[in-house]
């Protein structure tokens, strides 16, 4: 598609101007004097991090201002009509038939107790003058179009019988049935597995193009927005800081925040030379993990094998990334190496010694292997202060005196940038990024030689993610621990990893150096992963350039996700 068209001269379909929203109780301004427009058939992106007000601004277009939020001023003109003052009945006539909406979370955006057919029919019955047979034909047609293999069966199925990717396709079908003039898509692929993200996104673009529907795409993912949108609106803390043609924004960002956002995009660094050591720090041999079957009444259901004999090595100072889609077993692998999940076969060697064979080897490993978890809201005990949390791992260090512990904790907290006064605070008083810094401090306070990081930045905002990754890399260089870095995010992996292991369905399908995997992938699954998300590279002078790894995609085949 041709990104970067100048704003079309025709009358805009949607014109938002001076929109200001405040929280009623606190008077806090959440959307501040925002203005942007969307022309017929155009795809416009709103990019921002959490708290930027992008979702509120978008929902206001449909008249969905939450009761706690007050519309202070501004106008939203849709097709020449003012939305903010429209009578409820007329507003309802616009909703669905002229403006459609797709949500982030496919698990909660369809009614769980209503059959798909009926949910799709509702809008048609309301806005179109069709008989039941006509509606049915349209629905079947659309379900086929979005790639459902059995549209007839889907009519009488419930949402829980479909995967997330499929539900998002059904959601698209539901909205596009009415051929609205404008589609609001709020993070439509964020909750989906990487491999299906692109398919769903391309489907959305194709469908809207076919019907001449304009799209307002709301996302935190600058790469994706840049890929599909002709114009971009950048929002931060309720303000529109910059807007313009996608290519211009990427190549010549003007506002400091846009530059910061672009600078936060992960980029590949130079390959590192690591000292060659004889024994790997951690070696895993033929690791098998079975999840026991669920206990039913009189019998147990068959156990499910999550890992089919995994072998891998992590050398001193090396960062090995494990990538794969959901269900690939990458998280199970990390948990099993950390000792959180019992393995049913294979062995783990630490410094060449098998850890299951002797108590001393086990404890040596236990004290030297630490872990950073994904969710900083659940990984810190809410009833302990930051100081207590970071001190706790030192409890089992033999022969360490209280004063030494105190000094070490202070040192580590300073290292992660939480030096002054954070020790007395509690997790709920900290932001997500700060919490993840605490989690990292807790993992490195014992000076481990091996750290497992399970999606350590995937719950964080883009700019915070960049800072935390930076911190992690710095600590890794300083203390030289080896790391198993588990992630679904190829951009992040490309930035941090020395070596990459690709997993699918509990098996390693490919492994190699980062450059090998990213530049010359061999296995089909690796290629599929790489082609699913666009990459970014620096174009110098603060701008970036967007590219598809492995070239432009083949025509997208809708398939079950």
């Amino acid at each position, binding site marked *: 598609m041709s990104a970067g068209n100048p704003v079309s001269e025709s009358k805009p379909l949607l014109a938002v101007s001076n929109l200001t929203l405040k929280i009623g109780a606190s008077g806090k301004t959440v959307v501040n004097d925002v203005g942007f427009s969307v022309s017929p058939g155009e795809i416009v992106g709103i990019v921002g991090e959490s708290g930027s007000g992008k979702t509120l601004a978008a929902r206001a277009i449909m008249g969905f201002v939450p009761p706690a939020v007050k519309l202070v001023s501004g106008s939203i003109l849709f097709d020449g009509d003012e939305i903010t003052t429209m009578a409820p009945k007329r507003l309802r006539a616009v909703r669905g038939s002229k403006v459609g*909406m797709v949500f982030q979370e496919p698990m*909660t955006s369809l*009614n769980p107790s209503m059959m798909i057919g009926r949910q799709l029919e509702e809008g048609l019955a309301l806005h179109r003058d069709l008989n039941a047979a006509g509606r049915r034909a349209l629905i079947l047609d659309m379900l086929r179009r979005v790639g459902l293999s059995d549209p007839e069966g889907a009519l009488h199925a419930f949402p829980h019988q479909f995967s997330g990717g499929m539900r998002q396709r059904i959601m698209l079908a539901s909205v596009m049935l009415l051929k609205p003039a404008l589609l609001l898509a709020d993070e439509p692929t964020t909750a989906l597995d990487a491999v299906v993200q692109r398919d769903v996104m391309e489907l959305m673009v194709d469908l809207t193009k076919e019907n001449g529907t304009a799209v307002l795409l709301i996302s935190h993912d600058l790469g994706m927005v840049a890929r599909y949108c002709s114009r971009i609106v950048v929002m931060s803390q309720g303000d529109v800081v910059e807007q313009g043609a996608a290519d211009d924004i990427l190549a010549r960002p003007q506002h400091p925040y846009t530059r910061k956002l672009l600078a936060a995009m992960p980029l590949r660094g130079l390959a590192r030379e690591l000292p060659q050591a004889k024994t790997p720090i951690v070696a895993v041999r033929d690791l098998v993990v079975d999840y026991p079957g669920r206990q039913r009444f009189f019998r147990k259901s068959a156990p499910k094998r999550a890992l089919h004999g995994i072998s891998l090595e992590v050398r001193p100072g090396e960062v090995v990334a494990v990538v794969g889609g959901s269900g690939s077993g990458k998280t199970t692998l990390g948990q099993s190496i950390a000792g959180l999940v019992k393995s049913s076969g294979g062995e783990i060697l630490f410094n060449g010694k098998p850890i299951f064979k002797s108590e001393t080897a086990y404890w040596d490993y236990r004290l030297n292997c630490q872990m950073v978890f994904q969710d900083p809201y659940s990984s810190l005990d809410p009833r302990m202060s930051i100081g207590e949390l970071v001190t706790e791992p030192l409890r089992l260090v033999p022969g360490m005196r209280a004063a030494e512990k105190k000094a070490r904790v202070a040192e580590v907290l300073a290292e992660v940038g939480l030096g002054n006064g954070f020790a007395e605070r509690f997790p709920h008083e900290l932001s997500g990024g700060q919490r993840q810094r605490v989690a990292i401090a807790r993992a490195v306070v014992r000076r481990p030689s091996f750290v497992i990081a399970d999606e350590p930045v995937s719950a964080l905002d883009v700019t915070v993610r960049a800072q935390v990754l930076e911190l992690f890399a710095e600590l890794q260089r300083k203390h030289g621990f080896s790391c198993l870095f588990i992630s679904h995010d190829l951009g992040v992996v490309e930035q941090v990893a020395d070596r990459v292991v690709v997993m699918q369905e509990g098996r390693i399908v490919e492994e190699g150096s980062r450059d090998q995997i990213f530049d010359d992938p061999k296995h089909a699954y690796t290629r599929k992963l790489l082609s699913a998300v666009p990459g970014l590279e620096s174009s110098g002078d603060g701008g970036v350039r967007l590219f598809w790894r492995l070239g432009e995609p083949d025509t997208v085949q809708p398939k079950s996700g």
Partner: protein
Amino acid sequence: MLRFALTRIVMAIPTLLIVAVSVFVLIRLIPGDPASLMLGDLATPASIADLRARLGLDQSLPTQFGIWFSHLLKGDLGISINSQEPILPLILSRFWVSAQIVLVAVFFASLVAVPAGVIAAWRQDTTLDLGLVGAATLLLSIPTFWLGLLLLLFFGLKLEWLPVVGYVSIGDDPWRGIIYLIMPILTLFLHEIGVILRMARASTLEVLRLDYITHARAKGLSEGAVLWRHAFKNAFGPTWTLIGLVLGNLLGGIAVVETVFTIPGLGRLLVDSIFARDYPVIQGCMLFVAFCYVLVNLVIDLCYPIFDPRVTAQ
């Protein structure tokens, strides 16, 4: 679906077994010898020993349980010490009296409280919501025996609209039967409105936050359609479960209301038997109510997929 139903039914069996054992053990723990109690002042050591043998009390506990349990399976709960009547028919006749009060009260309370709760949630934090929740909390806080006394004082003694105490079987005289039941039913009705309304509101609030409600609104559906078709059905599950618990709890707790209005129901039978130390009847009542409770909850569970098709797919 069939599997789901069978699983639920089979799962209730161990519970019922343990319930039976617990009741049996509990009754054996009561201090005092049933035989000497039954014979009263006329007891002689010989007659006590004779009666003990007839009641099977001289056997070992497991044997006693075996005999008792095999009778239980045949529906034989034994004979009342005081009235010498067989217990099951006695319980059933009393149960009918209590059940009609409880069922009617809970049915009408649900009919009023569920829509009111949904509307309160829909209008969260408005005056209407605060009023409804406030009223519900107030009703919930008034114990049924006092509410009953107040109704009795007001409608019975002051206004003299309704008879103060007593009971006439509806079978004997439908009109008078109903008249006598109005106040006890009204008492439970008012109390349970409070309980059910709060639950209906809470679970509707949970559902109203979800994306599919916004999706329904985004289709252009009217608020009525959003509430009824999308919110209500998904929100009703927890309330439905609560109604089951309420039914069971009322069967256990109805004694106080029956005492206020002197109605010969199941609760009163149990309390009178405790006073009279009529152990077989205590035992029978406890078993019967617990079984009803398990049964009601089973039926509630089996209906649950209507509101949430996901439960059959575990």
